[in-house]
């Protein structure tokens, strides 16, 4: 198996990509659920603004998102400087790659959860309230379980998107081997050097397999969750 004979550098890129994507997905999940809930259920001033903000990374050139991240979260940025005092640094660290991936994948996550939330019948939540469940309890025992298919699908989709994130990541945290060089960055770096096409191809195959796997998993999970919810 020539193809699976990865060099340490390639392994680093693959494990870093997986770590970054996983952490990005897990960390953005609570925020994503909250944003989806707000967009699906609440009426508030500035709702369209929030909707726009959430979807912005989808339509902005990734390099712009990366630049904005650098400006805001860079060491000398308004938020980055403050966070640095607390010992949290994003710029040119793997945590920065997580932030970039999370923000780029956020629209997909929120969309999937929101669609699923909107399919939950508010009448069921009302019924739960008449049975003595507080708002939080209704959310935990009724809304959240019924939204599970969307949450699973959105998470897997967000994970796959994070795996493939390139533009914002390389702009924000560059491509430092072992630090911020994810699979896409590594492929790009390899392609810059003559004679490295073999290594690039191996990582390309890894990318395709991971992405396809994630999509299939998302489908299977969503279907199984839906089936369980509907109780067949």
């Amino acid at each position, binding site marked *: 198996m020539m193809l699976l004979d990865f060099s340490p550098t390639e392994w680093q890129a693959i494990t870093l990509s997986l770590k970054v994507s996983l952490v990005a997905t897990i960390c953005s999940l609570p925020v994503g659920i909250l944003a989806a809930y707000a967009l699906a259920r609440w009426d508030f001033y500035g709702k369209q603004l929030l909707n726009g903000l959430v979807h912005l990374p989808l339509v902005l050139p990734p390099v712009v998102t990366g630049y904005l991240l650098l400006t805001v979260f860079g060491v000398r940025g308004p938020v980055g400087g403050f966070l640095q005092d607390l010992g949290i640094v994003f710029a040119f660290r793997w945590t920065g790659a997580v932030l970039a991936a999370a923000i780029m994948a956020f629209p997909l996550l929120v969309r999937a959860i929101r669609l699923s939330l909107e399919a939950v019948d508010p*009448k069921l939540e009302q*019924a739960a309230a*008449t*049975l*003595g*469940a507080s*708002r939080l*309890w209704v959310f935990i*025992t009724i809304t959240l379980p019924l939204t599970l298919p969307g949450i699973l699908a959105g998470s897997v989709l967000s994970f796959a998107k994070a795996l493939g994130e390139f533009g914002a990541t390389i702009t924000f945290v560059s491509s430092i081997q072992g630090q911020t060089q994810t699979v896409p960055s590594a492929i790009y770096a390899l392609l810059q050097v003559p004679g490295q096409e073999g290594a690039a191809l191996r990582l390309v195959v890894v990318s395709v397999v991971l992405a396809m796997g994630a999509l299939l998993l998302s489908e299977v999970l969503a279907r199984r969750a839906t089936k369980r919810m509907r109780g*067949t």
Partner: protein
Amino acid sequence: MSLSISIQHRFDGFDLDATFAAPEGLTVLYGRSGSGKSTIINAIAGLMRPHAGKIVVGTEVLQDTQAGVFVPPHKRRLGYIFQDSRLFPHLSVARNLDYAAHAARREIDPQHRARIVDMLGLAPMLNRRPVALSGGEKQRVAIGRALLADPQLILADEPLASLDSERKSEILPYFEQIRDETDIPIIYVSHSADEVARLATTVVALERGAVIRQGPALDVLADPNAMPLGLGAVGAVLDARVVAHHTDGLTELSAGQDTYFLPRTRLDVGQHVRVRLPASDVMLALQQPVGFSALNSVAGTITAVQPTSASSAIVTVLTSAGPVLARVTQRSVAALELQAGKPVFAIVKTVAIASDIGA
């Protein structure tokens, strides 16, 4: 425990202004769709907030807009039975039944639970999901879920409306049982005269957002003025007892001192039933009639003659079992000189057992 309500709410082109009291037993909010019944029941549940009003159960104020009191739905200790069941699809029947106890972090009394499971025949379906249940079964689970919420008030919003007549007759007895065996007030929304006749202890008749009549069920149903709310055929309702089943296929009932016959029913001898006598099937005679084909004639005294149109009138006859209504022509009123105080005989062609309604 009783419930008192006074609410005012303004919709587009529709004002709701209703004040009534519901004593123990089953109170039917009765009226056409759009009369405000569902709005009222949802206000009691706290699912909609009327612009102004006061809702009190026993001594507990659930809402008082003047005092700025609003108890949220989950603190009202309700058992709300919805028309569309609203079972939680991702939970088994057992988990649906125990939902309220879990929400309140309350211990489930296994005996109480077993009694309700037994009464509603839920044992075989406890591990199933709602999707695997028929409409009637779903509604039985919904009733069980409401009862197991340890409610101080039971609300039912047209709980039979989405069921076919066979399922209706399957569910109706449970409401009778709850009415007779608990002292929890039940507020029951319906637009069916049959359900009212069979279930109601108290009737609150609503029309276009206003209470047009309220009182004990038998009184309201015997009131020809309650007709505009679409009682279908106006008709009195009497309490009766099954006396005997005769070999010629008739069942004998006694109501007050009167005897009624009707085609044989499945009822047990000694059982108490409510019978409905549609006013259009009651004729009046001045003498004890002889030689006629109708089986039932009872003596009484006219208490009211109420014209309903240029040609017809509703005559209220007080019999030993209560008022009976007869729909007669104005010509007969004149010819027989029907007026209050006059003794007459009511010839009853049809006696419908309210319990058989829907069967």
